[in-house]
Each structure stands twice: as C-alpha cells, then as structure tokens.
C-alpha cells in the first residue's frame, strides 16, 4: 500500500514538473500565411526558403526510394517535382523576392505560403495571367476559410 502511494506521489510530481516546464520550452512555428511571413526578418525568410526547397526535394526523392523507381508513386513524385518544387528552379533569394511581391498585395495576406509559392512558380514559368488570377482568387477564399475555421 505504501509503495502504491509512493508511486502515485511520484507520478503526480513528474506530471507537475513536465507541466511547469512546458511554457519555457522553445517553440517556433513555420509561417502559415502572408501575415506570418511578413513578421519574419529577411534573413529568416531566406533560410526558411532554402530549407523549404531542400526539404521538399528530399521528401520527393524519398518517394522514389521507398516506392521503387518505376512505381506510380515515383511518377507522381516526378510530376510534383516538375510542377511545384522550387529546388533547382529558383534560388532562395528569388523565392523570397517572389513572395515579397506576392504579399505586397494586402488582399493576399491570408493566402497560405504553400499556395503562394505554387502561384509564384506558375507565374515565373510564364503561365497566362487569367489562370493566375483565378488561382489567386481561389487561394484567397481558401485563406479566408482557414482563418474563419481557426477562430
């Protein structure tokens, strides 16, 4: 009985220590939309962009490794890489500049960063302006919905 009580007390103590420790644990969240993006310094934006490109490319390469070189997944990864990956297409400096331009329109502030990057890449590849504008309008709606849902 004594052991049980001691064990229970120890459990409570550990839980309280972890609970007390939680607020001091450092935490950084990646930028979700234009509002978050504009809070970053240019150095942060640059290194985030480089990390984003590298992480994206690594993830796509891993699909090839995990699913086999001629699998449907590998083909999808190759297509995704062609369409949406920034690695090898735009430098970190260019990506930051592109996002700065994109979020220079305050109406785009709620658009998720992932969508903004995709739109920027399509723009940079010479996609027609009508399609780009449609994508922007859709992304604005998506951003507004996300914002409403998170409230």
């Amino acid at each position, binding site marked *: 009985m004594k052991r049980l009580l001691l064990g229970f007390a120890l459990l409570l103590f550990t839980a309280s220590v972890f609970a007390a420790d939680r607020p001091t644990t450092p935490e950084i969240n990646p930028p979700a939309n234009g509002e978050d993006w504009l809070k970053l*310094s240019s*150095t942060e934006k640059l290194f985030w962009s480089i990390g984003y490109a590298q992480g994206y490319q690594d993830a796509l390469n891993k699909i090839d490794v995990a699913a086999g070189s001629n699998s449907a997944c590998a083909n999808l990864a190759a297509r995704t890489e062609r369409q949406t990956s920034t690695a090898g297409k735009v430098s970190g*400096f260019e990506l930051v*500049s592109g996002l700065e331009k994109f979020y220079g329109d305050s109406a785009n502030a709620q658009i998720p960063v992932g969508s903004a990057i995709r739109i920027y890449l399509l723009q940079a590849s010479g996609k027609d302006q009508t399609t780009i504008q449609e994508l922007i309008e859709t992304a604005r709606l998506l951003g507004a919905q996300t914002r409403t849902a998170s409230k």
Partner: protein
Amino acid sequence: MGKGNGLFAVALIGVLTLSATGEEPLSLVIPKATLPSVVTAVEPSHETASVTLADAARQNDFTAFEALYTAHPNPAFADLHALWTYSQTERVGAFYGEELHTRLARRYPAFAAYIDEYKIVDSHGTAFWPTAETRTFLVDRALKSDVPTASPIRIATTTHTQRSRRSPRRQRSQRRI
C-alpha cells in the same frame, strides 16, 4: 339536422380544397405609421477610408502606396517609392548589392549602422542587404520628415526581368532613388 350536418361537411371540404389548391395567403398589411421614416439624400453617403502613404507603407500594401504616390507624389516618400518599386519589379528585388548600399549610406548617415546586422553574405562572399528592413528605415525617416533635401540618387535596374535572363546584354534604365 342530418341535412344540416351534410351541408356543413360539404362546405368544410370545399374550403379545405380551395386552400390546398395553392391560393396565396394575403400579405400582411402594415400601417404606414409603424414603418420607419427615411429621409433620403440624393445618394447614400458612404464613409471613405482615407488611407495615407504612411498607412499603406506600414500595412505593406504596395498597390495602395503606388496608387497614392502616383496621384500625389510626396518628396518625403520618394526614396521609399523608388526602393519599393525596385523590390516589386526586380527578380531578386528583396535584396540589393554594394552599389545601392553605398549610396544609401552616403545619403543617410545612420543607415550603415542600422542595416549592418541584416547583411547577408552569399556562398561567393558577396554581400547583400534586404529591401524589407531598408524600407522600414525609409518609412521611419519619411514619417519624421528626416529626408535629405539633396536630389535623390539613381540606381540602375533591369526593366524586364524575363528578357534580361535570356539576353546577356541587360536592358537597364535609371530609376531615381
């Protein structure tokens, strides 16, 4: 008595049938006295949002800033306008190099010390400075009306980024800054 009941039943069925055939109920009549009285002007007046150059700059709204500046150019915001236009039109407009940095440092004595901590050195050892933080500096100066009176300096910028990528001979134009 039986005859009376029969007539009543026929009348009831008749009434029910009529109402079931879709005859619209009469709309509610509201006496005029209970309606709110509206005094109409020629056009309803809408409160217009008066956005200033400073507001647009603070809110990172280039579209509004550009429109306002084009309509009413303000010399205090001339440098900011030129730099922001550069950042919006250049392929790598979020950063600039040594040449512009030197010019800005010469124009604003406190600038070099301020921007130093934001300097980025690339893999080739070339230094770049960010446009966003420089804009913050210029907005601050414009709001304090602490802008040099000397004529703005010039910066060479590419006019068409796509063309400049294909052609080794970059088309350049002079933009005042």
